[in-house]
């Protein structure tokens, strides 16, 4: 396919800690086509936000290659990267802490326009600010309001307007709706979808919420302790999950219907293990209900199980573990 906008190969990010190397992202490869949404799901500490941040070089990766529209952005010197970042933007999780509380709504939205010299006059700047406010559904009368006067949903709209103001082609959305109430969450999800259609945007959507990710993504990558354990089309993942971790994750979702109460749940034992100096072999083996002794040594490469459905479970890949 030639319309791949972002291609990440063998990305690694290790953080040094007093106890050893923390493998936040360990050999992750993924690619996204133009106009699509890739959902990155996993529990806290699995490295999903770190991937999002490394792609925009908000943190420098340990190793790996990131191709954006064909060129390796890691080879671009930092001084020149600023102009590149205009094409790639970030929407942060917490609208309460990601916006400067001392700037008004219009000042906040004007900031990226000024930094990137996108307006030639004060008048044009003002018009652009109003244009983006309108685009994200912020009323003009809020232009001189401060963030503390607004609710979480509106604050998140400021964050979205800021990201859009430099006309990016690609946006990393890091848990953009997790801090919001459900009724507001639906408003923001609809807005993100509308903007994608209008502006032909490509999203990486990082979240821990499986029903949100199902709603918004075309493709989903499930992460566990710094690695992708399963990756496929959204419908395929929910219909035919292959990795035992994905299966447990899907079974742990509480469906808002009392009929689901009698459903047999697959409850995982134990908790996420430490990402510091992880042992070789499958990282999920300790909590897996289907692990054998061999899993502790098994290689965990992603393998295509047909139709682009990739999983890293050695037992599934060997045909030992079949569902249904």
């Amino acid at each position, binding site marked *: 396919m030639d319309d791949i906008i972002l291609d990440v190969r063998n990305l690694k990010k290790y953080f040094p800690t007093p106890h050893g190397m923390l493998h936040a992202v360990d050999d992750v490869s993924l690619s996204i086509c133009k106009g699509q949404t890739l959902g990155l799901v996993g*529990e*806290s500490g699995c490295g999903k936000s770190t991937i999002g941040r490394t792609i925009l070089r908000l943190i420098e990766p340990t190793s790996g290659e990131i191709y954006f529209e064909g060129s390796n952005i890691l080879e671009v010197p930092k001084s020149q990267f600023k102009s590149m970042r205009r094409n790639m933007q970030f929407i942060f999780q917490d609208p309460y802490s990601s916006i400067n509380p001392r700037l008004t709504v219009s000042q906040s939205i004007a900031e990226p326009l000024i930094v990137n010299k996108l307006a030639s006059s004060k008048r044009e700047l003002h018009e652009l600010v109003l244009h983006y406010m309108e685009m994200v559904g912020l009323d003009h009368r809020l232009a001189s309001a401060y963030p503390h006067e607004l*609710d*979480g*949903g509106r604050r998140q709209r400021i964050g979205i307007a800021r990201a859009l103001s430099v006309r990016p082609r690609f946006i990393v959305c890091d848990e953009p709706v997790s801090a919001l*109430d*459900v*009724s*507001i*969450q*639906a*408003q923001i*999800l*609809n807005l993100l*979808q509308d903007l994608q259609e209008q502006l032909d945007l490509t999203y990486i959507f990082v979240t*821990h919420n*499986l*029903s*949100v990710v*199902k*709603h*918004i993504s075309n493709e989903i990558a499930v992460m566990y302790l710094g690695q992708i354990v399963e990756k496929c089309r959204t*419908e395929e993942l*929910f219909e035919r999950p292959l990795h035992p971790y994905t299966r*447990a*994750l899907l*079974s*742990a*979702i*509480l*469906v*808002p*219907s*009392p009929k*689901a*109460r009698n459903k047999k*749940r697959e*409850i*995982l034992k134990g*908790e*996420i293990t430490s990402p510091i100096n992880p042992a070789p072999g499958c990282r999920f083996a300790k909590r897996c209900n289907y692990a054998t002794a061999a899993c502790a040594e098994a290689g965990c490469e992603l393998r295509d199980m047909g139709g682009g459905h990739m999983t890293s479970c050695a037992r599934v890949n060997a045909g030992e573990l079949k569902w249904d």
Partner: protein
Amino acid sequence: MSERLLEIRDLEVQYLTMGSTVRAVNGLSLVLNKGETLGVVGETGAGKTTLALSIMQLLPKKIGRIAGGSIVFAGQSILDASAREMRSVRGDEIAMIFQDPMTSLNPVMTIGDQVAEMLELHSEGRDKKEISDKVDALLEMVGIPAERKEEYPHQFSGGMRQRVVIAIALACNPTLLIADEPTTALDVTIQAQVLEMMEDLKTRLNTSMLLITHDLGVVAAMCDSVAVMYAGRIIEYGSVDQIFESPLHPYTIGLFNAIPSLEGKTHRLIPIEGLMPNPAELPQGCSFHPRCTKCMEVCRHQSPPDFDEGGHTVACHLFGADKEGA
């Protein structure tokens, strides 16, 4: 009829702030029977936590004020109890699990000591050995090895800390457990573990539970009945089946529509337009009317009364006797 454990009538709670009075709870009534789990659902600012704090008599001093109504727990009025009487009720008969296990534990006390503190406060005359054995048993009950009782909260993960909080809450076999968003801060697989454990302990100890949450999934999995709160009032109440199968209030219906479904593909979500009203300036009439798609003239002026049909209560002008008046 099962036995009533907690009965709240027309409760009104206000916070006095600089210049304005915030009406956090407005004429709230509910009943909780023995052994029952009641889910209280609502969005940020609906007054869920204020309700919990009122029952516990833990409203912030000077600012928070119960302006009217009654709370009767096990036949006794809580509002008339003295501070000393409340101290013996709190923890012993009514216990609370707070949302954030990271902040509700004391970081400079071992978890064993924190569980023991509860036992010491509420059971005089027991010796050290007895308390220490009870601590071990409680920790084992929530799935924490007793050897770890000398460790501090920072040495545990979020899920484990919440287990410690639950062990403390259950230490004195309370008759009522108030759980305020007990799993909101946890990952889904850990949430599944903790909820399973709570369910199991609740049946074993025959505790009644008031489960406060914004997650309709948690309610469906855990509760017998549901109360939906909006702007400090219960706008709909019924059994889990009634609320989930045939919700009546436009707000409840809106909540269900706003959640992305796991079954089937929906292209667009149907959000509830507008925002939660400011509790310092509640709209006239029904508090939901500015956001309601079915708003009528009467909704703007008159607060709707509760309409009861077979135990399914709804506060909306669309239902009940005054339907024709619309």
